[in-house]
């Protein structure tokens, strides 16, 4: 009987610990990363990359900016951004910029696939 009450109080302590750790005083939200951005902000981030690429034309630099969004290939993020941008009615000009950047990433791929 003692053990029963002992484990019950452990469980009770655990539940209170979970409540305070996850619900009441969770980790500060000011520590998130670019990879955690909401999809519309992510699309805007990719659009910024496309806008700056339009000027500097340095694919390596743009890649270094896009890899911060996660471990997928940068093209995936551009494709996601295009889908979101279409849903959110981004201007045609912005869509073109994104499409142009996507195209730039696709060119080397098709070139290497060719025998």
């Amino acid at each position, binding site marked *: 009987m*003692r053990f029963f*009450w*002992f*484990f*019950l*109080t*452990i*469980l*009770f*302590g*655990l*539940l*209170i*610990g*979970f409540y*305070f*750790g*996850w619900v009441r005083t*969770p*980790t500060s*939200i*000011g*520590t*998130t*990363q*670019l*990879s*955690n*951005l*909401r*999809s*519309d*902000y992510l*699309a*805007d*981030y990719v*659009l*910024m*990359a496309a*806008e*700056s690429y*339009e*000027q*500097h*034309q*340095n694919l*390596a*630099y743009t*890649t*270094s*900016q896009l890899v*911060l*969004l*996660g*471990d997928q290939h940068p093209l995936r993020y551009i494709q996601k951004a295009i889908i979101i941008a279409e849903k*959110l*009615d*981004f*201007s045609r000009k*912005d869509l073109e910029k994104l499409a142009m950047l996507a195209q730039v990433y696709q060119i080397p791929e098709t070139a290497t696939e060719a025998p």
Partner: protein
Amino acid sequence: MNSRFQEEKRQPPYYLLTGFLLGLALGFVMTMVILPVQYTNVPPETLNSKDKDRYRLMIALAFRSNQDLGRASARLGLLRDDDIAGQLIQQSRRSETKSDAQVLLNLAQAIQNPLAQPAITAQTTDFIETFTPAPTETILPTETPSETSTPQPTQPVSTPIAQMSPTPNLSAGLPFQLTENKTICNTSYRESLIQVEVFNAEGEPIANSRVTVTWSDGQDTFFTGFYPEISLGYADFSMTPGSLYSVKVGEIGEMVTDLSAPECKDDSDVNYWGSIYLRFDAP
């Protein structure tokens, strides 16, 4: 009375307290260390300071390309900084490269003075040509969020604000003239400096002004604006005591010659090398 029961003292249930504390400690370790709350779908204002800097730089780079101040301001607004221009200036001070600092400063300047002509210098494009991708840290995606923040529904910025057309930095072609030349004797300076401050015709400091310093066997060119905490029009150069220097601002500015580190004396009559302050104004 039963003497047998009198001898047994009733013990408090300490094991229950022990169990509770054990559970509490385990709960805290799990929620704070092993499985802390991970946020996804967050707005830019919640980014950590490093990523906020990256986001800000990205905005400045995009602004350099599209010169859309409305869009840049809207994007910066997402970071919810109290002093947007101040944050840009502070970030420019801790930037790893000069080009990043310049891009950030340009945006800060455009925000502070929206009616001014945006300055685009050749220097701001240098980094792109020389950029070699550094090894980047791998960020693992968090697919199982314990808690999702629900920020206010905000439309991504697609601002239909009139664009400013980029124009070259006009300060380069101005015939800047020396209006002040004074010796600075300040013991707190670690080295002998030529301090240059450049102003436009309205008396406002100008960033991105090219300053050329020449001496007997060399020349150095640099730009104003890298010390916004002093002045946007400020730049300095370290002198070697005993050498003679000439200073010019812009392409056709007045050349100030025969400058050398002045001798100063501190409170206990010990000599040390002082600095020179030069003020140049546009006509």
